[in-house]
């Protein structure tokens, strides 16, 4: 690969992006511009190392990476599962840890023991579908919501919800509980398969660097 090609990163907006930039700065990769909250720029360049960064909405990150608009992406496992794109999931970054769970009022626990039809609200219809159909073999109606999913059981839109649980405090405050755990989640680094072939050395070096850092921490 000629070295005037940029390596492009797509970072999921918010905490994940900040944590990722922290991690990269420990490897001597800096991009201070991106941390400036007042900027309206969309893409940030580190000319010295030939790197480009941009921030994107979480669910869009796998899209950018799959289609090759970004070489590398950082995004939560939940998004990767929901979007189901053809990307290499090369590294568990270890931060942003939480769980995908089925939640609802205690009274709904009974409904999960049988195969009868229930209503499930979620921001993650694909994950919910796969869990109920393929693992539990239960027929469900899935209702896609875009946020504040906890409202579902409270206003009786649905019997249970499938959502990310970090501390569980929002659930508790609203009289809901974790009924079943689907899987653990954390931030992952994903790579476009073509990029890994065409820019192998640079990406392997980066991955090795992060792995070394992770081993030090343990």
């Amino acid at each position, binding site marked *: *690969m000629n070295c005037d*090609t940029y390596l492009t990163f797509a970072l999921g907006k918010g905490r994940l992006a900040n944590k990722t930039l922290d991690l990269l700065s420990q490897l001597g990769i800096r991009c201070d511009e991106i941390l400036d909250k007042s900027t309206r720029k969309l893409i940030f360049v580190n000319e010295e190392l030939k790197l480009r960064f941009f921030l994107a909405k979480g669910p869009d990150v796998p*899209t950018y*990476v*799959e*289609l*090759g*608009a970004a070489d590398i992406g950082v995004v939560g496992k939940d998004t990767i599962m929901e979007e189901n*794109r053809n*990307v*290499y*999931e*090369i*590294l*568990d970054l270890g931060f942003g840890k939480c769980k995908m769970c089925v939640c609802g009022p205690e009274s709904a626990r009974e409904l999960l023991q049988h195969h009868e039809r229930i209503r499930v609200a979620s921001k993650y219809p694909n994950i919910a579908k796969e869990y109920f159909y393929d693992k539990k073999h239960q027929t469900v109606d899935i209702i896609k919501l875009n946020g504040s999913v906890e409202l579902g059981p409270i206003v009786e839109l649905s019997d249970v919800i499938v959502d990310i649980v970090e501390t569980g405090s929002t659930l508790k405050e609203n009289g809901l509980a974790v009924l079943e755990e689907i899987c653990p989640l954390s931030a*992952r680094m994903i*790579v*476009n*398969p*073509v990029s*890994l*072939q*065409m820019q*192998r050395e640079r990406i392997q070096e980066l991955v090795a660097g992060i792995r070394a850092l992770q081993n030090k921490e343990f």
Partner: protein
Amino acid sequence: MSKRIIHTPEGVRDIYGKEYTRQLQLQETIRNVIKQYGYDDIQTPTFEFFDVFSKEIGTTPSQELYKFFDKENNTLVLRPDFTPAIARCASKYFMDETEPIRLCYLGNTYTNTNNLQGKLKEVTQMGVELINDDSVEADAEMISLVVDALKASGVPKFQIAIGEAEYFKGLCEEAGLDEETEKQLRAFVSGKNYFAVEQLLQDCNVSEYYKEIFLRIADIFGNMGSLTEARALVKNERSVYAIDRLEKLYQVLKLYQVEEYISFDLGMVSKYHYYTGVIFKAFTTGIGNAVVTGGRYDKLLGHFGKQAPAIGFAIVVDHLLEALMRQQVPIQLKKQKHVLQYDPNDEKDYVNKLQECIALRTAGEYVELKAASSKS
């Protein structure tokens, strides 16, 4: 007045003008290279019975096939790739042939992928199949043909990654994994998802020793050195044989002088399950997909009643064109058309221009003859 629909459905498109000229020219260029290797053309139907593309065959998953019924209620499928169709065809027409059969094809394939992901549902594929030849020389011919085709297409830089389906299978056997675990592991290793590989093997109580090995193989890709490394990891015959085969292949590729385009990737597994030996993919910059995929499929023809080894590949013409466009490779049109205009009010002018036009056409030129518009 009813609403007119003039746009195309999602995932399909009209190709015209310069873009189509370029596509046709590219197809002709690649076809020439394929013909130089002595392959004969074959055409199979656009749709076939579902059985040709069923789960047992191991092509595209059923939910991504375009299916419909004929009048007798048979399920028909728009072909998602050519290989099973050619295998069926070869089993039928060359049942008793034991000499190598070289076939090449060009046509459109159809996969019913998800909407709104920026993926085409109809793409043009060009490819070859070499049947009745299980030699390493046949493997090398395939890869060299890919290199020559890509060189001729004008892409300045590309890379061919080669793997071996048997290496992974042998290792799973050695580690004593059941079929279900092997299937899951295959998905994780091919996705280079190290974390999930570790989790899965932990859950299955696989020994630390094999856990380490499986984590390593997702990582083994690169030059010849990676083969030496891969060989050191395994003890079973099947995997060792796979490495032997790749080393021999590399020697033949050196004779073709194409080794600079080659890298090995033992973690590579294909989404098509019919591959049994060498598998390969070609990559270039500017596009997120492989432009060529191929491999050996020694059991596929058996499904259609002919026990014969075979190997082949398909070039996705649309992906290659997109890569050429993104890399700003200039189009060199082989022949420009002439435009002759005559004065519609002057009969003599028409006769003169027509004579000129006929002369040019006879000389093999492309000529458009039209009346000069009154505006110009």
